[in-house]
């Protein structure tokens, strides 16, 4: 018995390594591939040269070298790393709360028609409200601080995850359910071993959508009420007209979003090992 287990683990590991190769290729190497660098380096060059030659005013468009120097300065002297850590803490708090709430709720809604009928219309009414519209009332209720920021990030990430989970679970291939039921599977077993696995890939990719919405809400929340964080630094820079700091913040946000989404893509690949050659 142990022997099978070890062999199972080993074969899973081999598949995982194959997938890690895919991840590495897809994420890191794509950024440094010759075909992309062929376009990217000239673009950076244009960005550097145009302000320096005075074709565009360098006060409005700082050259890339200035931005990089500013970024280094922010890390070295202004404690920008602490801002990033603060922002990420709030972001992951909000994201994990919405994952913990939305996925079980979505699974139960997709699984049972009685639950769906009683809850879905409420979410369909609330979902179209743009999350930024919640900002004033959230500030009044929670005050300015972490609570309000986490709640806003939660709002941004909640609906995409909920609706995708619920749809994916609802559309589970009926033959899987029929054969499991004929074998005698209880409803809990069906949920844990059939529905969730069938919907897993869609759920993980819905988290990707959630991440991009969450980053939007992170910046908005920090701009409106906060003492730290990337959005706060960005907003401060606006008041003092420090365009290079603003650009540095934007680049940081882009890099963070790119990295999180690549990690989720990797998890997605790992979870869809069973799709075999079709990934």
């Amino acid at each position: 018995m142990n022997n099978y287990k070890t062999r199972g683990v080993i074969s899973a590991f081999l598949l995982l390594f194959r997938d890690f190769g895919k991840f590495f290729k897809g994420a890191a190497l794509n950024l440094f591939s010759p075909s992309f660098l062929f376009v990217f380096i000239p673009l950076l060059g244009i960005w550097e040269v145009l302000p320096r030659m005075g074709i565009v005013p360098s006060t409005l468009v700082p050259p890339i070298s200035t931005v990089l120097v500013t970024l280094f300065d922010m890390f070295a002297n202004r404690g920008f790393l602490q801002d990033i850590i603060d922002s990420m803490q709030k972001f992951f708090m909000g994201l994990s709360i919405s994952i913990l709430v939305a996925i079980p709720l979505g699974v139960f809604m997709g699984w049972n028609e009685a639950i769906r009928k009683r809850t879905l219309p409420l979410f369909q009414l609330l979902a179209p409200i743009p999350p930024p519209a919640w900002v004033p009332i959230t500030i009044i209720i929670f005050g300015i601080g972490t609570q309000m920021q986490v709640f806003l990030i939660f709002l941004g990430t909640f609906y995409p995850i909920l609706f995708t989970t619920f749809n994916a679970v609802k559309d589970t291939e009926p033959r899987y359910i029929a054969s499991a039921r004929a074998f005698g599977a209880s409803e809990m077993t069906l949920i844990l071993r059939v529905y969730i696995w069938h919907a897993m890939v869609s759920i993980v990719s819905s988290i990707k959508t959630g991440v991009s919405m969450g980053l939007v809400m992170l910046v908005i929340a920090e701009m409106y009420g906060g003492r730290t964080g990337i959005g706060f630094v960005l907003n401060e820079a606006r008041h003092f007209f420090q365009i290079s700091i603003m650009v540095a913040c934007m680049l940081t946000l882009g890099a963070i979003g790119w990295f999180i989404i690549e990690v989720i893509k990797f998890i997605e690949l790992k979870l869809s090992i069973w799709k075999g050659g079709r990934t």
Partner: protein
Amino acid sequence: MIEAKGVSKFFSIVNDDGTANGVTAVNSISLNIPSGKIVSFVGPSGCGKSTFLEMIAGLQAPSEGVIYIEGKEVRQTLPSTRAERIKYNRKHWFLSPLANSMWKNKPKHDIAMMFQDYAVFPWMNVLKNVTFALEMRGIIKKDRIEIAKKYLEKVNLLDSMFKYPSQLSGGMRQRLALARALSVSPKVILMDEPFAAVDMITREKLQEDLINLWKETGITIILVTHDIDEALYLSDEIFVFSSNPGSIRNKFLIEADRPRKRDDSYLIDIGKRISLLFEYDTKYESEYTI
């Protein structure tokens, strides 16, 4: 033994213009299927044979009539009057009546089901697929692996125990589904066009495998197919279905010994009579439909 008494199934279909039509999918079928036999339901597509099979499996409730497996009623007949329907809906307001119990893995009847495709769970490897079925029957973990191994060996899949279904060929996937269905040693296996998705040579090999495994175990097999040759090669009894509304047109007993030859003149003769019935059916239909 499986017994059906006047089983009917009605559906309502909503048309494009918003009106609804009542459709009779299965019209008062009564039959007896003796234990330990292979029985085929043959008929053109849309004749309600799959619906009838699903009613035997308990995946759909009959609108009229009852089905018994070993004297036990498979599923309560759907309510026909309004008052009964309200009561029925109130009783099943939360869980669909098709569902098993909420927490406990327990089959309602000792059956297993096999489908044309998608029969095996692609997110479990070969061994796990079989042990999943055994787990549902409440067999302890140590025995599960032992039994699963035994049945995987019977269908020649022991070497690909840790592969995922997506890494297997169509024939291997179907053999896995067969091993999974057999492993729980059910009284009845219900097959819904099990070999329709594989090529002809694989199909013939699978049919031979099925016959050999059936001889060892002696369970009842109910097979839905549109392939007359498959039905002739495999079954002891053939029920020929006709469509609009789905009902049994005729029943053929096949008393040839096994192993059968596919070019046996006796079988070919019966096959001709069945296809004549099919032809008559389609002719009959075209006279009455516009």
